[in-house]
């Protein structure tokens, strides 16, 4: 390895030799870097899972236009209602091929002595199939029977194994909102930070469950567009059809991005996770700084000798970068492995959508190298400022 690095660097790999000279210290340094990686991965994973859980309900829909109430329109599940009349007004636009009303409500499902789950209900009209994700079109037909539901097999805190075989011919009964429903099929959506599962019902069943709600005031309106129509242009033109400030119209993907942004930057949970990411990064940099500054301090006399011999500051920066890259590159992998295990465990225990993505792994790897390099350069400041004779 020394010969290879010598050829690669064009000089003796002093940083590598320094690190490997004390295996115990090297292991401790690698453990420190790995721990810093885990900290950052955990925080990024939680933040990412929140963004992912926000995005999941939007994926029930085809990527068309969404009309929302102007009040609390930042979220899909908590938005205020709007008049169904807005749907009919939109149909006059030549690029709007159709539309459907979506009704959103929340209820608590008490399924055992101590088991309760917060369920998000989506009430869908019988003609909603063409506006939903392709995989939902077929099972949606089975909701035509009153008081039936497609239940989420990933619902948290409930043993859903009994629901896996539910069909229209063999519905599985359950009780919610003091009403007996029958599960006639499954979806696999999963809970997030705002609920534990998502159930799909017909609009009629929705009104049975939430009698205070009216078919005249849906939560959202989903519009279908003609092939090739520009959603941005159509949305801008549609807004002109309505009285000022009575609707918000966004493409489904834009609405999803907007809610992710809102949840991450304006809601307490998102801010806590974002703060956690920052804290994780700061702690990571502090750990890397401690490791590398201790190494610099331990070798100050040797560095001073090199400085006396005429080595320039760039040589010392090269050594510390060499160490930083080695520590970052080796310490990253145990950190990644432990974090992936943590994600799996957390996903298993909570059903939140937390998983390792290649983008996140690469970002943390590059960030680790940069953090270690920055820490090393900071640790070298004392040497840069000193005169060689003062260091002996």
């Amino acid at each position: 390895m020394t010969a290879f690095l010598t050829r690669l660097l064009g000089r003796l790999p002093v940083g590598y030799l320094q690190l490997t000279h004390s295996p115990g210290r090297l292991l401790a340094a690698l453990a420190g870097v790995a721990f810093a990686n885990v900290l950052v991965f955990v925080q990024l994973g939680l933040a990412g899972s929140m963004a992912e859980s926000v995005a999941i309900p939007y994926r029930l829909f085809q990527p068309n236009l969404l009309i929302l109430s102007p009040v609390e329109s930042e979220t899909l599940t908590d938005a205020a209602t709007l008049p169904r009349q807005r749907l009919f007004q939109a149909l006059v636009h030549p690029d709007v091929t159709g539309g459907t009303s979506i009704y959103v409500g929340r209820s608590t499902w008490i399924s055992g002595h101590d088991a309760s789950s917060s369920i998000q209900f989506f009430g869908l009209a019988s003609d909603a199939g063409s506006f939903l994700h392709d995989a939902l079109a077929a099972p949606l037909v089975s909701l035509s029977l009153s008081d039936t539901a497609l239940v989420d097999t990933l619902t948290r805190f409930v043993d859903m194994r009994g629901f896996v075989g539910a069909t229209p011919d063999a519905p599985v009964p359950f009780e919610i909102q003091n009403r007996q429903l029958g599960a006639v099929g499954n979806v696999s959506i999963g809970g997030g930070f705002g609920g534990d599962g998502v159930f799909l019902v017909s609009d009629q069943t929705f009104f049975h469950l939430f009698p205070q709600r009216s078919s005249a005031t849906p939560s959202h309106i989903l519009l279908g567009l003609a092939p090739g129509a520009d959603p941005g242009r159509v949305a801008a033109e549609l807004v002109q059809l309505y009285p000022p400030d009575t609707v918000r119209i966004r493409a489904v993907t834009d609405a999803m991005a907007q809610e992710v942004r809102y949840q991450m930057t304006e809601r307490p949970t998102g801010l806590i996770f974002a703060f956690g990411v920052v804290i994780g990064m700061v702690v990571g940099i502090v750990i890397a700084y401690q490791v590398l500054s201790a190494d610099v301090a331990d070798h100050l006399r040797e560095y001073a000798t090199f400085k006396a011999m005429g080595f320039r500051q760039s040589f010392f920066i090269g050594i510390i970068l060499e160490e930083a890259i080695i520590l970052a590159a080796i310490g990253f992998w145990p950190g990644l492995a432990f974090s992936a295990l943590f994600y799996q465990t957390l996903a298993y225990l909570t059903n939140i959508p937390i998983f390792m993505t290649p983008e996140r792994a690469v970002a943390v790897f590059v960030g680790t190298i940069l953090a270690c390099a920055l820490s090393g350069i900071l640790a070298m400041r004392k040497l840069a400022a000193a005169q060689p004779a003062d260091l002996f």
Partner: protein
Amino acid sequence: MTEPVITVRHLDHFFGEGEASKQALFDVNLAVGRGSLTILMGPSGSGKTTLLTLMGCLREVGSGSVMLLEHELCGADEALRVDLRRRLGFVFQAHNLHDSLTARQNVMMGLQVHGRGDPARHARAADHLLGLLGLGERLHYLPGNLSGGQKQRVAIARALVSNPNIIFADEPTAALDKVSGMAAVQLFKELGRTRGTTTVMVTHDPRILDLADRIVTLEDGRIVRDHPGPARNEPLAAPV
């Protein structure tokens, strides 16, 4: 008298600033000729090492003049001082070898300071010099596995391997036995004779005074005596 490679004029040096400052050197004047072996002597705190480090570009010269290899050090920027240090060799009282580099690798660093080069050629040069200093069997030893004398010989090899113009040595024989110490100083003398390498050495070792071309004695930051050593009947460079 040979041409001077170091000329010191009216050199003062202070440690600290303001009222807390302490003057370490007072109006020092000295010229050192090419190829000579000059020994600086004096009691502890007399300013020997301070003078050595000022002449060797290891400290900034703030007052007076030090001409080193035809460059003025007073007011010189760091880049010039680094360039000049590359033409010098240093042997310190504490050997300051890098503990994670082998004897050979420590010596190779003396060549790598000059930039990228053929590592195999560097290794051969290091091996040759270590062999001359009796360490041919210890090339791959880490400093922790070498005796004090062996470490000092590695440090000497590191200082000599790049053929410096001037060697500055601070108590280089302190950790060496009589034979090794004499051999090392004989090597400095030989380099002076064959290559014109100048040596300026701080030492208290009476065993090597006989090899000096010149002996300069400092007391309380002043040169109090400057006379030819036993190895030469006339000074290589007169006091300026």
